[in-house]
């Protein structure tokens, strides 16, 4: 049997709480990252991703406590990202129990960071997160993709999607892989939060250019979207937040659907 496709719930953490629509649960500890991590792990999630969306220095201590708490609560792999700028930042997170660190803005600004992290902790520890947005203004030197809505290139954004960089996401991925990236977490800014499905053209274009695993992110709303990420998008894993947080489609429901569609899924 080949490798199982992975289903990855993502938890955005700020000030020690998980945000992004879990409020409806209204339980005593509904926003507690450790408790949610345990719940997802028990439900059959294959991996978890934590993104510290505040990522300010005064919150690092809180984040470390959370990482340690999560490591004690679950026994599946998890990645932590947000505000990791140096190898020292990464070491703290990894020594607190995380399996991988995810870098985004800092890697774009200082690509050597990827190599340093890979040399110190191993390539498998280094996830490069790319926030990409379709740009319809075709430029020379960019990889133009013929999509169903016309030609586009995919532009990298940093600072949580606030800053366009003019960098081509596909070219960046190829370069980052050579520098030591062990995995890519590719978020479509066009689709994020829409629940219209992943940007399959972005996912596929990137997946075909790298030889390390690709996690599709941004836009999952229905079980079919996960299926498409694997079949049309050629992704190795699919990440989602709101479908899981709202309990609209719990992890076992998604996995059962995929299994029936012939996708290899961990039971």
């Amino acid at each position, binding site marked *: *049997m*080949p*490798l*199982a496709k*992975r289903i990855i719930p993502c938890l955005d953490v700020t000030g020690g709480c998980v945000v992004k629509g879990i409020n409806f649960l209204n339980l005593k500890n509904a926003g507690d990252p450790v408790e949610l991590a345990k719940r997802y*792990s028990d439900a059959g999630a*294959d991996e978890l991703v934590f993104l510290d969306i505040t990522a300010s220095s005064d919150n690092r201590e809180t984040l470390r406590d959370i990482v*340690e708490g999560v*490591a*004690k609560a679950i*026994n*599946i*792999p998890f990645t932590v990202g947000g505000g990791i700028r140096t190898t020292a930042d990464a*070491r703290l997170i*990894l*020594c*607190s*129990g*995380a*399996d991988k660190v995810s870098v985004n803005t800092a890697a774009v600004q200082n690509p050597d960071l990827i190599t340093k992290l890979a040399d*110190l*902790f*191993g*390539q*498998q*520890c280094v996830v490069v997160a790319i926030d990409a947005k379709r740009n319809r203004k075709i430029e020379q030197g960019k990889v133009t993709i013929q999509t169903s809505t016309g030609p586009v290139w995919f532009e990298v954004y940093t600072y949580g999607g606030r800053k366009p960089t003019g960098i081509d996401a596909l070219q960046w991925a190829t370069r980052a892989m050579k520098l030591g990236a*062990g*995995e890519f977490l590719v978020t479509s800014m066009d689709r994020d939060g829409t629940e219209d499905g992943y940007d399959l053209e972005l996912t596929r274009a990137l997946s075909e250019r790298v*030889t*390390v*695993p690709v996690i599709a992110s941004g836009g999952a709303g229905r079980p079919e979207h996960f299926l498409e990420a694997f079949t049309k998008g050629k992704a*190795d*894993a699919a990440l989602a937040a709101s479908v899981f947080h709202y309990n609209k489609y719990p992890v076992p429901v998604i996995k059962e659907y995929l299994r029936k569609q012939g996708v290899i899924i*961990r*039971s």
Partner: protein
Amino acid sequence: MTQVFILDYGVGNLLSLKVALEKVGLNAKITPPDTQLKKADAITLPGVGNFTAASKSLAPVKSDLVNVVQDGVPILGICLGLQLFFQTSEEGPGEGLALFKGKNIRLKGNLKIPHMGWNSLRIVKQNELFDGVSDGAYVYFVHSLYPEPEDKTIICAQTEYSNLFTSAVADKNIFGTQFHPEKSGDVGLQILQNFARIVSR
């Protein structure tokens, strides 16, 4: 209480293994390799790092470690820890513990390397480490190399990726998994529980 040493010979996440061993009732202690190994009731060689670097940092204690294991102390090697049971590795120069004859070779083929994620076990030899683990169970892998034992009878599980490779070995008190039981959910916990039972008797 049963004392398990987790030999720290590199940089990486050893906390997960410690926590997992504690969950199955073992008293796990992360120790530098030059610790008094005779005090250990069991040893785990965790799976972080590179063969050459690990071989260097284990070199000063190699004979002690081998002696302790030959005296019957249970040892569990995980990932690189398992690879270190063998003689050499295509990853780089250096010598392993040579508890078994054989070398570690790279996964080949056109699939993505490292082999990272959940894959299934083909149990080829039932073994007490796999009590309660069913054939086809999914476990978590992160690796680019795997051991090729000369003595095929020590192989207790194989896994298919770009090729069929050895994913677990067992021989008397020596156990090794190419996957990470501490990251393999309930299946992994079962395997560690079995190891704890072996250690405690």
